[in-house]
């Protein structure tokens, strides 16, 4: 076990997979000479050379097209978007090509591509850069959608993503890049998709989160524990596939659920989980499922308005108390 930062764990995963499989290559804006906007890809150009670490023009549709096409041809590209907000430029390549080609070719053509980059909301990055759009991809059949919370998961899930034959949407969180954690030394450490993990055991209320939402849940659970309220925290790890068995099992024990996410509330991951809880465990529920989510507005730039739009652990605390009212 080595302790490292979330972004180092991502770098390690890419390095290990590039060493393991010569078909793996990296492409994106400023991933090579500039060493990555967030320094995630630092040292990789030096290590693997310009054939495998490709600096692209500023054209997301170009990056996505290059990655999708080369994946169809048998390579395993890891394409970086500087942020997931910029991927909106590439929607046609992503949704209409990468996600569909396996189905449209009757399973003859695979598209083992990983699209990765920072998602989540930031600090005063305003409406066009501060948003979390995982539901867009989770809504589209054909993608797997991965959102790690810990460095170990960032490592193990990214390695699994690169090895997976489906197109994978790998959403990192810029706000987690600097967080530390232990990462297994094993170069074959992978984290299976669709296996949520219980980060904290509890009996009074189930908190469901992913990515930085888990942090909200853990802090809220800490606060509530001081008041004698015992919360169970589940980290989903992957949105598609979604491990509802773990959620349902927990809810059957606690009879209450709060879902915490940074993305907008309307038609979101939280909406889906709430609906599935009702489908799977309706007569276990002692209170309506609560959703803690971003305000349904384009992210304001002004600090005070931004604060009001981003959910916090105190919102989770309040939601838990509503389920216990």
């Amino acid at each position, binding site marked *: 076990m080595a302790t490292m930062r979330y972004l180092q764990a991502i770098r390690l995963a890419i390095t290990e997979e590039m060493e393991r499989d010569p078909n793996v290559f990296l492409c994106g804006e400023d991933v090579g000479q500039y060493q990555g906007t967030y320094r995630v890809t630092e040292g990789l150009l030096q290590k693997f050379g310009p054939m495998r670490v490709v600096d692209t023009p500023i054209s997301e549709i170009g990056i996505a097209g290059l990655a999708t096409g080369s994946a169809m041809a048998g390579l395993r590209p890891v394409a970086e978007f500087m942020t997931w907000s910029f991927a909106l430029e590439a929607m046609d390549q992503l949704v209409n090509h990468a996600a569909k080609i396996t189905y449209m070719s009757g399973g003859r053509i695979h598209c083992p591509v990983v699209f990765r980059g920072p998602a989540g909301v930031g600090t005063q990055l305003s409406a066009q850069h501060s948003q979390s759009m995982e539901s867009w991809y989770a809504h589209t059949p054909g993608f797997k959608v991965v959102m790690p919370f810990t460095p170990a998961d960032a490592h193990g899930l990214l390695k699994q993503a690169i090895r997976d034959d489906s197109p994978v949407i790998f959403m990192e969180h810029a706000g987690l890049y600097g967080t530390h954690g232990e990462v297994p030394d094993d170069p074959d450490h992978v984290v299976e998709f669709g296996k949520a993990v219980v980060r904290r055991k509890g009996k009074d209320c189930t908190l469901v989160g992913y990515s930085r939402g888990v942090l909200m849940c853990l802090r809220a659970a800490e606060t509530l524990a001081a008041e004698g309220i015992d919360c169970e925290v589940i980290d989903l790890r992957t949105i598609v596939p979604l491990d509802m068995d773990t959620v349902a099992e927990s809810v059957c024990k606690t*009879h209450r659920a709060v879902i915490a996410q940074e993305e907008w509330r309307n038609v979101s991951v939280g909406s889906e989980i709430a609906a599935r809880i009702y489908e799977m465990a*309706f*007569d*276990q*529920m*002692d*209170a309506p499922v609560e959703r803690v989510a971003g305000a349904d507005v384009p992210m304001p730039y002004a600090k005070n308005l931004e604060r009001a739009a981003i959910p916090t652990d105190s919102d989770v605390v309040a939601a838990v108390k*509503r389920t216990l*009212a």
Partner: protein
Amino acid sequence: MAEIRMPKMGDGMEEGTINVWLKKEGDSVTAGDPIAEVETDKANVEISAYESGTLTKIVVAEGQTVPVGAVIALVNEPGGTGKPAAGNGSAPAKQDVLPVSASASSQATGRAASAAPASTSTERVKASPLARRMMTEMNVDAMQVTGTGPGGRIVERDVAAFLTAKPAVGVTHPSSSTSQPVSQGTAGTDKGFVEIKPTRMRDAIARRTQQSMQQIPHFYTTMVIEMDRAVAMIKELNKDNPDGKVTVNDLLVKACAIAIQRVPEINSSWTADNTIRRYHSIHVGVAVGIDDGLIIPVIRDCGAKTLRQISTEAKTLIGKARAGSLKPDEFSGSTFSISNLGMMGVDQFTAIINTPEAAILAVGGVSREHVINADDTVRIASRMKVTLSADHRILDGVVSAKFLNELKKVLEAPFTVLS
């Protein structure tokens, strides 16, 4: 084949108990004929057939409780194709008529249970899915459980509390209207205890008073009223009309109506939508103590009625209340209530607001007291203490005081009510 269902008789009614069947299986019935007496939590009421034909099947046995809307009997219309359930018709009276057979009664329970969700009742009990499942599994009647969740929703802890509180008690309603000991316990040399299963009326009182005290911010204002002239006036009135005596209570009803006309804020409700509804008509409820409970018959439109009319109506209603034969519209819809314990030797007390009203007047007895006049001389007067319990969401102390002052004015100048 027409189905006769448990009718909804009054706003609060969720279920009813068949006290007695007035018709047997095989009897012919005409639309409008009383066929059974039903006990609700407020009164015993006769229900009538609304189809003519033959009563072919009694589905719910005497003593059984079913929700509103559940089928209680079947009537075969003349010319109908259904066969009488009691047999081939040659000896209908010989068949198991009363009480119905065990299979029939268990079928009745089944029907009642499955009919419950489809009940025509608009006051569906709010319960969380978990609580609902627990109640089904433990055979707990949701009406018996007090919900403490948001909006009065029954949640897990309420069912758990109910089950812990009543481990030895059956969860079905008693079939009789009197309290019954349901279990006894002893502990060591202690003489032990007896557990009483509450009657339906007791249940209703428990639920409504608890709800009122928990949800309405009560406050209380007390006023002393001199009653010499009022008592004298009533004496005079009764001398002229010994057959229909007017009581202090009748006078109070009329005096309250006049005071409400002058302070109409009293005649209001706080609605579920958080608005204040002010009523144009003054319907005064008069609390009547009866065996193991109380009921509040309503004298309607007291503003428009004379003291004599009110007195006559009150007598009829109180008589019916004691006999348990009030009809639902005779004990619902009041906009203000009076509870009088004066005749029981009570000096003064506070009453719990009869929801959804804004206030209730608690009346003590008239007693002869020394009163110190403004010039420090002493005289003796007949005095009565009344206490208004008011809903502070609607009324403030000043309004409450205004009302009591108007009431005092009327009662201390009692001929006002005759003018």
